[in-house]
């Protein structure tokens, strides 16, 4: 099996459309930027106040005044612009971001998302996650299908505190691509080296399996 994360972010990258304004969450979602199809042009938003995030800098290019929302040093692309946190989240909340890709602890049949805290563990804060899921036009979850301990992350109902209710549009894991619909979770595609049964086995939520399920 290929590297799980590589497979996930490559599949997510195929959801990008020419002209999209995209916010990539911290961690695995950030890697989606490395797989943007060559024939399309997207603009990356960083909620700390930048539209037009470029690749990481070379040593010579490092600028302490230029970081992304993960606090990593980055560069800007030509035609980028900067704005305040208030303007940045006005942009997010106002529905101007076409797509955000985020990680998750749990997602459920209603599209509820939990990705900011585990009760009993230390509370770090939600940062901009609640704003992004409430505001972005489309929310894609990029995550490994199960927990490190082998448990399910795609549940009938989230048990952790929510980041937002009914906010997820699509879930991409190393095993499957699952769409959140009014009727429930629809299995759109499975990985080339797995089976529908295998995906179901690793999923607590009920999956609706249409006649045609694609492969990726």
């Amino acid at each position, binding site marked *: 099996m290929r590297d799980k994360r590589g497979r996930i972010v490559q599949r997510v990258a195929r959801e990008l459309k020419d002209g999209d304004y995209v916010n990539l969450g911290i961690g695995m979602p950030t890697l989606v930027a490395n797989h943007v199809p060559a024939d399309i042009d997207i603009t990356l938003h960083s909620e700390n*106040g930048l539209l037009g995030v470029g690749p990481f800098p070379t040593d010579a290019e490092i600028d302490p005044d230029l970081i992304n929302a993960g*606090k990593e040093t980055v560069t800007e692309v030509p035609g980028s612009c900067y*704005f*305040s946190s208030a303007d940045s989240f006005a942009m997010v909340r106002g529905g101007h971001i076409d797509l955000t890709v985020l990680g998750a602890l749990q997602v459920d049949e209603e599209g509820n998302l939990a990705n900011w805290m585990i009760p009993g563990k230390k509370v770090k804060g939600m940062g901009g996650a609640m*704003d992004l899921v409430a505001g972005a036009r489309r929310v894609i979850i990029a995550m490994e299908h199960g927990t490190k301990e082998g448990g399910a992350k795609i549940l009938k109902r989230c048990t952790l505190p929510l980041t937002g209710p009914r906010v997820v549009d699509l879930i991409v894991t190393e095993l499957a691509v699952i769409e959140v619909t009014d009727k429930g979770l629809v299995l759109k595609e499975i990985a080339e080296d797995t089976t529908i049964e295998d995906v179901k086995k690793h999923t607590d939520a009920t999956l609706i399996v249409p006649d045609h399920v694609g492969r990726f």
Partner: protein
Amino acid sequence: MNKVLQRAEDAVALVPDGATIMIGGFGLCGIPENLIDALRIRGTKDLTIISNNAGVDDFGIGRLLRARQLKKMIASYVGENKEFERQVITGEIDVELIPQGTLAERIRAGGAGIGGFFTPTGFGTVVAEGKETRVIDGKSFVFEQPLRADFAFVKAWRGDRKGNLIYRRTARNFNPVMATAAKVTIAEVEELVEPGRLDPDAIVTPGIFVRHILQGPSYEKRIEKRTVRL
């Protein structure tokens, strides 16, 4: 009307124990380093700090934490600071976590004279607990109140004697909005220039919001996560 102060010490001397201070910055980027350090040296106590993050253990707001100068922290994300965690666990410090966009918008409302607003952020989560909610055009919203402070410490790139400010790259972040929402806003800049030197179309913070301005003697601009490509 002279807004220029010579030293950060003169600025922090205005701040009494128990004050509420908004401090600009995102992570360690665009923080008012000199004002924070002057506040630490002065030892002002029982502060409530409103800032997106709490610095790291030995830089930024982390230095005030280590010196136990904080009573309460209002932030959106505080994950990078072990001393902060310790003080939360022992109950030495209160913490209030607010979604980043709601934090920014509450401060904006405070500066813009808005009595409160409805936001979709946080609806259906713990953030909405105890708050008024309302369905508007089929969408659910939470009522949030404006946020103001006694002081705002902001960091800009260049400023003039009238208090006009411009920022550089992502060091802008919370600085402009905080500058609008305090009784007394104190700005520190890397370069202080004469009025007329900044392009009036490019000024981000109009001088009306800035009571005092000073040029910081030096900036460390510490980098939190140095990430490079080959």
